[in-house]
């Protein structure tokens, strides 16, 4: 495939006003606009359209709608309760074990009592309630304790051996009944013993207060998300052979280190915001409309609904290896610049998009070997020593894992960058935030507002974390954190993402991960106590990452990673074969769309060169 030179087009102007251009594209577009009045005019027109739509008035939902929704949620709560009883009836493990909800009239009393108790809880909490009538109900019984069985009762998945605290059936649906009234109920012997109501909802309010004051402290709730300290995000870049990708060899590495992988693909948004921001800041995603000729997008998991990282013939290579700019060639080069013609052509291309999507689904059933996988992204939540062990295993398997680069992520650095962007309106490093181009200081729009919000949020967090910046405090905090369950998930990436997103270069954040030890000494180390081996690996990882301070101080770790410290790591495995410059084809460009039309009906992969 020929190297497509960089050329601006109208689509770029639209992306220009959204701040969604790479650095190279931005330069080219600004030069273009500076010399072409027609382009300037089009930019202005597109911006006006955008502002017009954004300025549409917003209306609030009617009050009756909110009340109606409250009723429906009440019904849903009852349904959940009934579902739990049905599970019991069917012999399934159910949380509401012995409650005859749904089986008898008494069951409906239990259900109604549960709702009344929930209402009582709502009335005790300081949060705003949907229904004003609820706020007026003064509970005569005490609200259940945090985590009480009653509180868990409405959950779909019942927990085992749940015992319910039930107040007596409500008389007229007004005040919550009392425990005494319940005690007089003719309950069967096998009915669960209701737990005691705990004094109101103060424990929950205290929990919220504690969580707000000490977001880094461990919570008592096992299901509460753990807030990691800064610099507990890492990105691991690696080049792997296609067979390694296809066989999901990484699953073995993770599994050997106690990390359970979920093979379902999740959204990219599952990755932490700082991780996504850092990658986007460095590697602008500027993928062209590459779905047209590529008709080969397939889901590695075999389901068409998930975005695939596969490309039939496209191969990518480091920009420096191919001589092309880091920015992708532009699509739409052959599209007419007038809006009229653009409108006409858009219909053809949209139909092509639909046709290609259908072909994608059909292509899923075809042999896998015909399609190259661009790469895969694995999001791992584990302890630092588990991660260090995984990296050591990868490093000692160069046949499967090469060019391993570890890149620490600093929320502080990102927050500073975001704040700088907000203040200066700089184009560089917008990191996927939709900043408007050309916004003058003092002007505000929805996009800037989003940037401001994010910057403020991160600034606040960074400020809190900065207060505990000394190693001793961090050390104490991180040891209190727990990784609830080491896990790994696959994240979906858009087509061509692996082309445009690469490991950091020499003068950037990441550094290559050298061999921890030679094989013999490594084995010797592991022949000793397992802990020694793990410690050695973690020490090596910390030493390597600490070297970042010399290159990019703000990206370095605030403190060395502790063994049990929770770390979120994004493993980005790029297909090493597709990185071969000899096979470089780059992502699809508009010039390939026309020739590829003839290939749409054919299941054969598109040729590499037009």
């Amino acid at each position, binding site marked *: 495939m020929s190297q497509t030179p960089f050329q601006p087009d109208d689509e770029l102007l639209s992306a220009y006003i959204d701040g969604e251009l790479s650095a190279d594209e931005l330069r080219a577009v600004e030069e273009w606009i500076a010399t072409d009045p027609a382009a300037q005019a089009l930019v202005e027109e597109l911006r006006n*359209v955008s502002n017009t739509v954004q300025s549409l008035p917003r209306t*609030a939902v009617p009050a009756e709608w909110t009340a109606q929704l409250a009723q429906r949620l009440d019904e*849903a709560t009852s349904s959940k309760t009934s579902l739990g009883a049905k599970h019991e009836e069917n012999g399934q493990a159910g949380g509401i074990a012995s409650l005859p909800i749904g089986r008898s009239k008494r069951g409906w009393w239990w259900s109604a009592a549960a709702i009344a108790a929930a209402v009582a809880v709502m009335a005790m909490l300081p949060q705003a309630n949907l229904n004003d009538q609820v706020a007026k109900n003064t509970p005569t019984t005490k609200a259940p304790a945090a985590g009480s069985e009653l509180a868990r009762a409405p959950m779909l998945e019942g927990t085992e051996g749940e015992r319910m605290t039930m107040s007596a059936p409500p008389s007229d649906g007004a005040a919550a009944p009392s425990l005494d009234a319940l005690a007089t109920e003719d309950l069967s012997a096998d009915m669960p013993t209701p737990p005691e109501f705990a004094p109101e909802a103060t424990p929950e309010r205290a929990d919220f207060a504690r969580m707000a004051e000490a977001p880094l402290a461990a919570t008592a709730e096992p299901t509460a998300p753990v807030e990691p300290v800064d610099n507990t995000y890492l990105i691991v870049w690696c080049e792997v052979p296609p067979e390694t990708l296809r066989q999901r060899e990484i699953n073995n590495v993770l599994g050997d280190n106690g990390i359970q992988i979920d093979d379902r693909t999740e959204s990219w948004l599952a990755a932490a915001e700082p991780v996504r921001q850092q990658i986007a800041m460095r590697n602008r995603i500027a993928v062209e409309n590459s779905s047209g000729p590529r008709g080969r997008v397939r889901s590695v998991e075999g389901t068409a609904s998930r975005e695939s990282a596969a490309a039939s013939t496209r191969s990518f290579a480091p920009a420096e290896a191919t001589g092309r700019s880091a920015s992708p060639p532009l699509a739409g080069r052959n599209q007419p610049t007038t809006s009229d013609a653009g409108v006409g052509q858009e219909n053809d291309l949209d139909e092509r998009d639909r046709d290609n999507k259908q072909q994608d689904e059909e292509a899923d059933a075809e042999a896998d070997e015909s399609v190259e996988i661009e790469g895969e992204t694995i999001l791992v939540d584990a302890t630092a020593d588990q991660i260090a062990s995984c990296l050591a295993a990868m490093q000692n398997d160069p046949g499967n894992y090469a060019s391993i680069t570890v890149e620490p992520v600093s929320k502080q650095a990102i927050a500073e960058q975001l704040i700088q962007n907000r203040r200066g309106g700089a184009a560089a490093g917008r990191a996927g935030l939709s900043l408007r181009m050309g916004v003058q200081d003092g002007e505000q729009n929805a996009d800037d507002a989003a940037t401001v919000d994010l910057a403020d949020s991160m600034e606040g967090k960074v400020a809190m974390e900065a207060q505990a910046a000394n190693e001793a405090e961090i050390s104490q905090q991180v040891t209190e954190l727990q990784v609830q369950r080491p896990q790994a998930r696959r994240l979906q990436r858009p087509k061509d993402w692996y082309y445009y997103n690469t490991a950091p270069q020499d003068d950037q954040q990441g550094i290559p991960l050298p061999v921890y030890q030679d094989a013999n000494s490594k084995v010797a180390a592991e022949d000793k106590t397992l802990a020694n081996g793990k410690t050695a690996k973690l020490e090596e990882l910390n030493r390597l990452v600490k070297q970042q301070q010399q290159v990019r101080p703000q990206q370095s770790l605030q403190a060395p990673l502790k063994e049990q410290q929770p770390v979120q790591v994004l493993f980005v495995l790029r297909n090493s074969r597709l990185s071969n410059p000899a096979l470089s084809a780059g992502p699809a460009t508009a010039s390939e769309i026309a020739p590829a039309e003839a290939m749409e009906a054919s299941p054969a992969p598109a040729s590499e060169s037009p």
Partner: protein
Amino acid sequence: MADQHTDAECIAKARQGERAAFDTLVLRYQDRLFNTLARLMGSSDDALDIAQDAFVQAYVKLDTFKETAAFYTWLYRIAFNLAMSHGRKRRPLTIMDTDDTTRNIEPASTAVSPSEPLESAERVAGVQAAIHDLADEHRQVVVLRELEGCDYEQIADILEIPIGTVRSRLFRARACLKEKLATMVD
């Protein structure tokens, strides 16, 4: 209503059965979701129905939500899928009057005034009609971009399309709107 609890805190509590915690999320996002759906579907009545369905479904399936993702993004996906599979043909456009029983709230953007300020109800109706007349795939990207403020990557993720497709569709949508709005200037 000023609630200091984060989405994650509310979700954790709601999972434990505290309905009020979920109510907080409803009050936090109901207007935003409704307005986005209204533009997407071209009907405020449909938008109200779908928004309600989305909140109920989110409540019922709250256990399936992964805290690492944004709650509103997850909620919006539910609503978006419901809207797409709703199966209703587009009704005649329901003009979202600003003088009806709904309350007016601030527009999402306080940007520089557009060349054609939305001062009149007719103008607003015209813009709404123009958005309504867009092809589905164009209207979706416009709504996500201009009203939800999503970046291209987020749009690509929600619609499950390549980012390049987001770029091209958004350009074409704006080009269409430009033509339609130009005919309104007289």
